[in-house]
């Protein structure tokens, strides 16, 4: 929990004296990788951040998008990996709490939560099972209590996360544009700390998150209290309605050090504060502890004297505490006192802006031969294999997870979890679709193409509901950036994302970088997570009941891209091969075509092809709708391939369209004109999922049996081991 020697020298020379102990704590917190982005910040600038709908304001912790009619949505993504790996319940819960306060900081009401969870191999690893179970409960207990629906996410298991956990939480807010907090402050304004008391939990949390996880440090994990958070949300929104807030920031990583220095730096003001005024949980806390405690459920507010009196009344109603801890000064100093004694007096821009680094990068050696394929053991019975595949943890239904999350509260959820993307109704009659996706298996084989694939997959998922992507959130999770090979994978992923974002004109509205995701057994696979927000002007595609005789059409080419596929890794235990590559032109044409035919009202349902390939995607439709389907694999567009490659290749840009037979001609006319690869490949009916190649049966499964194992296997695994 200290500065690097060269950082200490830098600090000493810049302030021209030896720093005090409080100053060291403040700067160590703020210059940690977690708070300062010192390894990544220079490079993150390459992402396009502007767009016609993007509203940028200084000091926002979340991205803001204009959705018309005077309304905005806000979005943000965070992770809580290190804490969740040590204490999954509290780590995951406080991860939710933190991102919710980022949404609240802009003056918008949080309306949805998403979470991406990654753990070790739960089939073999008892510890991974424990982490998984408790992280899910942590998210459920926190989000449910707040009354904010958790409407989507993803869960993945991979050996690279053994003894570790990735817990990513994204949140969306909604509000009136006129109610956005326009962060500003003037000399003499009050600096107020509102909410939970400051305790000794989470001390040094941001430094803890900026190091490899080698020892358990439970005191660095924060303690969740969703009830206080709920009261804070309502109190803040009431204060916002009465225009009582000049500027606002949540307390997260780095605690008061970070919130005070960053607020002052963003608004070009000075702040003088007294640690004696901070309401604490314990009476004997010293200034250093108070400044870096990461106790949860706290907000920093700048307001004036008269407005503060009204804020006090609101806090009284909700029985929450608010303390004036300081005031805005002219100049740019962050002056921390204990009574009359000065503990720290530092220029805010010095604290808030660590010197950015130029880390060296080098292509990892492991990539040299990764694309070579080995000879695979022959599969004798594909039906049997398919049954096992459908019950495997990564493919199995995640209903055990999302069934524990209240996904209905707020009564906006018009398309529910368990489909490609959930859809929320907005107050202006429009709809918002959202999804987060990651794919470390692809990213490990090809960090650039894998990251682009995550981006495209998230886009595909919202497109399946009829939504046009309007904004992207990225969360870049990698190992130790000081390792040039790891830093290379970070840069490759980032460049890929940038190229895709620019080509599709989808601005990055928020993001986060999480590095040092390592355990004693090594770094995680590169795990960029992409969240996509999509807007629907009129009506989403509500999945309709599929009937016997309905047709299945595929758009997009199935290619020999097996690297990082579930089929290679789960069935053949082989990591390698060529990972799927997105062809930008093809991707755009397919996306626009699908949106076009959804608008024309020709379809009953659309589903994307992703993890597990065509075989799994068709089965998912059948199991969800409890109807059989007979698919001719020879009709699938693309190069000529063996049956298993057609079934399980994870090529991107593919969509499965379900429609009534009477609409088929009309659909084919449009598809022909759109110059996309497509073919009708199957007909729905009876009780079996069948895949045939040249009239020979490859797979034949009863839907009800498949559905039962697919729905129950994850719960069985967690509950009974």
């Amino acid at each position, binding site marked *: 929990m200290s500065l690097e020697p060269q950082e200490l020298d830098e600090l000493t020379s810049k302030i021209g004296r030896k720093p005090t102990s409080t100053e060291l704590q403040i700067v160590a917190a703020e210059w940690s990788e977690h708070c300062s982005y010192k390894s990544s910040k220079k490079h993150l600038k390459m992402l396009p951040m502007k767009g016609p709908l993007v509203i940028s304001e200084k000091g926002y912790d979340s991205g803001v998008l204009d959705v018309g009619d005077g309304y905005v949505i806000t979005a943000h993504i965070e992770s809580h990996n290190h804490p969740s790996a040590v204490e999954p319940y509290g780590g995951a819960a406080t991860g939710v709490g933190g991102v919710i306060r980022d949404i609240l900081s802009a003056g918008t009401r949080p309306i949805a939560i998403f979470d991406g969870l990654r753990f070790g191999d739960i089939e073999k690893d008892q510890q991974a099972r424990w982490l998984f179970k408790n992280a899910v409960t942590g998210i459920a207990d926190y989000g*449910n209590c707040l009354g904010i629906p958790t409407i989507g996410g993803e869960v993945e298991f991979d050996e690279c996360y053994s003894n570790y956990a990735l817990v990513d939480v994204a949140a969306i807010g909604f509000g009136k544009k006129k109610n956005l907090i326009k962060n500003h402050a003037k000399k003499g304004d009050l600096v107020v700390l509102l909410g939970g008391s400051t305790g000794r939990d989470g001390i040094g949390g941001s430094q803890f998150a900026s190091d490899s996880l080698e020892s358990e440090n439970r005191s660095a994990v924060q303690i969740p209290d969703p009830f206080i958070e709920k009261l804070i949300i309502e109190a803040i929104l009431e204060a916002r309605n009465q225009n009582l807030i000049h500027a606002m920031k949540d307390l997260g990583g780095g605690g008061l050090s970070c919130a005070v220095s960053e607020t002052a730096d963003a608004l070009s003001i000075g702040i003088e504060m007294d640690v004696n005024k901070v309401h604490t949980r314990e009476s004997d806390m010293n200034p250093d502890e108070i400044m870096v405690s990461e106790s949860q459920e706290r907000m920093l507010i700048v307001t004036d004297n008269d407005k503060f009196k009204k804020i006090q009344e609101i806090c009284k109603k909700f029985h929450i505490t608010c303390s004036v801890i300081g005031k805005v000064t002219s100049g740019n100093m962050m002056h921390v006192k204990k009574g009359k004694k000065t503990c720290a007096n530092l220029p805010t821009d010095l604290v808030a802006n660590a010197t950015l680094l130029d880390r060296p990068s080098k292509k990892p050696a492991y990539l040299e031969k990764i694309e070579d394929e080995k000879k695979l053991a022959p599969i004798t019975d594909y039906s049997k294999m398919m049954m096992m595949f459908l019950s495997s943890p990564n493919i199995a239904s995640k209903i055990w997870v999302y069934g524990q999350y*209240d996904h209905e509260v707020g*009564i906006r959820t018009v398309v529910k979890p368990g489909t490609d993307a959930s859809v929320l109704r907005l107050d202006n009659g429009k709809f918002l679709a959202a999804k987060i996706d990651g794919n470390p298996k692809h990213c490990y084989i090809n960090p650039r193409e894998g990251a682009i694939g995550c981006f495209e997959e998230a886009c595909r998922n919202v497109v399946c509901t009829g939504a046009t992507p309007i904004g992207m959130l990225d969360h870049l999770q990698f190992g130790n950036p000081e390792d040039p090979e790891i830093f290379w994978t970070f840069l490759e992923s980032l460049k890929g994302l940038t190229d895709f974002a620019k080509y599709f004109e989808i601005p990055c509205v928020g993001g986060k970088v999480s590095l040092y995701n390592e355990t004693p057994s090594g770094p995680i696979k590169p795990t960029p997570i992409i969240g996509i927000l999509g807007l629907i002007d009129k009506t989403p595609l509500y999945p309709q009941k599929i009937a016997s005789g309905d047709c299945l059409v595929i758009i997009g080419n199935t290619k020999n891209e097996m690297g990082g596929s579930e089929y290679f890794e789960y069935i053949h235990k082989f990591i390698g091969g060529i990972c799927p590559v997105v062809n930008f032109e093809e991707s755009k044409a397919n996306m626009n075509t699908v949106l076009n035919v959804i608008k024309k009202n020709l379809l009953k349902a659309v589903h994307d092809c992703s993890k597990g390939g065509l075989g799994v995607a068709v089965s998912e439709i059948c199991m969800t709708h409890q109807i059989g389907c007979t698919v001719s694999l020879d009709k699938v567009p693309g190069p000529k391939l063996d049956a298993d490659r057609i079934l399980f290749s994870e090529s991107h840009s593919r969509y499965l369209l379900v429609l009534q037979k009477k609409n088929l001609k009309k659909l084919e006319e449009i598809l022909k004109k759109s110059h996309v690869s497509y073919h009708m490949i199957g007909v729905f009916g009876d009780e079996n999922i069948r895949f045939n190649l040249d009239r020979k049966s490859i797979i034949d499964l009863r839907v009800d049996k498949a559905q039962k194992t697919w729905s129950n296997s994850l719960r069985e695994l967690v509950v009974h081991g």
Partner: protein
Amino acid sequence: MKVGVIVFPGSNCDRDMYHVLTDVFKLDAEYFWHEKGLPKNIDAVILPGGFSYGDRLRSGAIAAHSPIINDVRKMAEKGIPILGVCNGFQILVEAGLLPGALLKNTSLNFMCRWTSLIVENNKTPFTNKLKLHQKIPIPIANGEGRYYVDELTLKKLKKNNQIVFRYSEVVNGSTDRIAGVCNEDGNVVGMMPHPERATESAINPIDNKPSSLIFESLIKTIGVKN
């Protein structure tokens, strides 16, 4: 005619309920904070769902001692229609206005899913437009939703026709599949499922009409908006 929606610290379905009452059913509704009293001109009271006091101690246990509960009790005695949904039901039970207790689900998990109810008593102010044994597709969302009563009380409930809704399937281990009950007079009703999440076709994938009848029953009982 005015419906009071009571808000406790931690209520989180209050705004959903208010939206359904005012925007969907055009009723006059007003929020009442738990520390305030209820005015005399209230014609019906709804205790919405949520996590009052963060479910500390037991769900509903602390809210049941809120000042406003004294007024709710007086109104209950006067025969004014009172509905508790989810946490609202738990509060009414903890306040002794309804019999029984709500325990942790047999799954030991929070459960959010759709199920269907069967109407067992269509004489209450919230069910008088429903048919006996009518099915209502509706979502549940709770962790402590398993209704429990001892055998003696169960007999009494049956005898007095106090079982208002049953689940059509085994959902969470509730005694006799009970999902909602009323007091002896029938004017105080509590239910674990969320009718306010099922009255609009946009958010109800199955059929929104049966749940709407719960609110239309209330309108029939107290009359329409002034």
